[in-house]
């Protein structure tokens, strides 16, 4: 993840106690990064990728539940969210964070190696097995949110009633209300101008995740390419500049923020209408000069 993580707590108890919460929460974040990162060779994710084709990999229950959530979201989004998309991301050069145009043959090879249907999850011994060689998982689109969820859960267990935690501002979770106001007022970023918000939403006991900023695009031969790849077409997603998703779990909102990028306005709207607990704000437009804001199931307060 390699993302900054921040915890904001109300000083409703001695500072020493809050420091203990923060210490333990950050230790947890570090541990989870060591478990989930595709860049740390001893992580569970790397270990799964290396061994799960040869034999079932038994993993700890929370990670197993996360993989089940990922599979459920894969099905609910018709494959727009897919944690096995890694080979495609690598073909486009995004794993090393340098974009390039892949050859069609490369894309075909990569596309043959993806698909969550090739990942078998066994509830019996919470193991994961790849049914095809070359499959790999990458939790980059859901990991930040998952860590936020785990930290929220720990803080609640410790009795915290007021907190905001976020990972790189792209996945945010809140407990209760801030000391002043009806809820946590969070800005929805304008990808063209990160200093200025598109508007704001007010949250209590909820999470919000955002996808899409200029750093996640690369320019080649005059065209902008998103870093988010459509697993079905193998091409970078187009038509959406940013997505913001609100939902009860940060892992889910994080995953859907990526999925909606791929799904586009209509499918995202339909998804939100079918699912009572998901709201979203999408900024659509192929170029920043022509853009439209769509929002469902959440109130986007705009300043002007």
């Amino acid at each position, binding site marked *: 993840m390699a993302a900054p993580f921040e915890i904001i707590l109300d000083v409703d108890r001695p500072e*020493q106690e809050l*420091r*203990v*919460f923060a*210490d*333990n929460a*950050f*230790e947890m974040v570090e*541990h989870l990064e060591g478990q989930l990162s595709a860049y740390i*060779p*001893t*992580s*569970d994710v*790397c*270990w799964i990728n*290396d*061994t799960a084709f040869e*034999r079932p*990999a*038994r*993993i*700890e*229950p929370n990670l197993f539940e996360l993989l089940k959530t990922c599979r459920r979201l894969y099905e609910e989004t018709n494959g727009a969210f897919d944690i096995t998309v890694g080979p495609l991301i690598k073909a486009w050069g995004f794993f090393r964070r340098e974009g390039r145009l892949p050859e069609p043959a490369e894309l075909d090879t990569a596309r043959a190696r993806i698909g969550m249907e090739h990942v078998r999850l066994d509830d019996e*011994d*919470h193991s994961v097995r790849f049914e095809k060689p070359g499959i790999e998982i990458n939790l980059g689109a859901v990991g930040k949110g998952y860590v936020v969820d785990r930290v929220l859960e720990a803080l609640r267990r*410790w009795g915290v009633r007021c907190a905001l935690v976020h990972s790189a501002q792209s996945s945010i979770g809140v407990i209760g209300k801030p000391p002043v106001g009806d809820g946590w007022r969070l800005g929805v970023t304008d990808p063209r101008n990160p200093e200025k918000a598109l508007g704001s939403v007010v949250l209590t006991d909820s999470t919000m995740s955002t996808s899409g900023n200029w750093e996640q695009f690369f320019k080649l031969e005059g065209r902008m390419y998103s870093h988010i790849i459509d697993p079905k077409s193998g091409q970078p997603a187009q038509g959406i500049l940013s997505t913001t998703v609100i939902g009860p779990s940060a892992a889910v909102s994080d995953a859907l923020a990526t999925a909606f990028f791929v799904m586009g306005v209509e499918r995202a709207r339909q998804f939100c209408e079918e699912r009572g607990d998901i709201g979203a704000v999408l900024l659509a437009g192929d170029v920043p000069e022509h853009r439209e804001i769509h929002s469902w199931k959440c109130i986007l307060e705009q300043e002007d």
Partner: protein
Amino acid sequence: MDSNKMDRRLFLQTTAVAATTAAITTTAIDCGKGKPEKPPVETVKATPGAKPTPSVTPAPAATPAPAPAATPAAAQATPTASGPLLPSEAAREGPLVDTRPFKFGLIGCGSQALLNLLPAALRIAGVKITAVCDILPARAQAAQKLAGGQAKIYDDWKALLKEADMDGVIIATPLVFHRPMAEDAFKNGRHVFCEKTMAYSIDDCKAMLRAQMASGRILQIGHHLRYHPLYYFANLHYIINHQLLGKISNVHCQWNRNGTWRRPAEPMAGVDFKKWGYDDADHVINWRLYRKYSGGLMTELASHQLDVVNWFLGDQLPQAVVGVGKTDNKDGRTIFDNVHLVYEYPEGVVMTYESMTTNAFSPFGEAYEMFQGEKATLVMAHLSKYVGLYFIEPGVAEELWMPAAHRAPLESPNLTQPVYKNPIILNGTPSPGSNIENIANLVKIINVVNTEQAQTTMSTYEIELRGFKRAVLDQVRPYCDGIVGLRSAIPALLGLEAMEKNQRVVMNPSYLDLSATAGTAATTATAATTTSTKAGP
């Protein structure tokens, strides 16, 4: 005879004798602290596996050890499943895919077990967790869930040791309980993997060793850095085989954090913590902060690094130590959370050690061990992205030793995956004071490129537990056995004594004599130990 020149051979000799005659004798054998000088022939014959210390030569062998029939002691120590352990072979790690079934029991379901040991154990083929024990029901349930829901839950460790269906038990409890639990485990014929530090006092360590020898069972101590591939590589290849550092004159270790080192309170309703040897509910969770149960930073963090220093200096022990300890977090804790020590090792090597909880500044990540030799400096930092770095001294011709650094280590039949090849060497000049991410591109970095996937994804916890599984199933001596455990506990416990008494503490040969009980603070088992022994039914 200089006590500091005694090496593992002494103990292994003792082990063999004790295992066969039940008489504990210590014959001091000066083997020149394990440098490649030739040890006495008799010793080699008497204890074939002890011949080279692991730091000197790659330990022998996944291949069968030479038949040890040469001496009466060894001849009687037949390696049968129930017979005494023959110290003929050091099991560093088991084979990569060893599907033989192995059942673990676990005492102590704290964060070390839940976050590190159990997940690592579950990666090992054939391993099942069949029994878990904790006095906090929620912890035991979490461990059970992690283990796949089949483990039997105990709150009484004595019951687990008595009845559980297991091939070996993991002890991951507060330091002060290691000795009574291990002793009881051996009494019940169990093989023991005990977390580091080995025990609360030197006497406790020795008692554990005596119990292990009498039982003929396996004892392994959880100094997991002994199992770190890059640590193993750096020591074997850079220090021993190619002597790239030249003569080492100084060592500095640091483990600095900025935090309370305290855990949040947990529900304790219905838990009779007094029955289990705790004075207070907070002590159950935060035992690391109270001297009654722990040595604080020295036994919970420093001992990892002190183990590495002993090891990298040729399996030596310090001759003396002075130190200053203080407590920065004023929250009722009774351990030092800010420690500074100076250790004198043989041959004029001085090691400075610092660990604190109120400032995390470090050029090499949270924790590091720095070995300064006349030709170069080697920094090992297992928590950082770059585990090992070396800095060549000005005026030392790189080409003289760069080819050596590129060479693969000597083929070691013990390592089932000899993949420590092709270290990445980047060129440049270190810039002082910058952090590791910045200097990474400027200095020489030991890193491992390897194509053997399993090796890259294996945590040290997994390697050490695989090693334990193999030691038990094949009846071979673990790479980090009780002898190493005692020797690594000594600098931690002597350092504590030096700070607590505020005086220079000198290494005494009797600390290595299993038959002797000495009267210093570090060697005296405490009241707490006695209490814990009494605790429980």
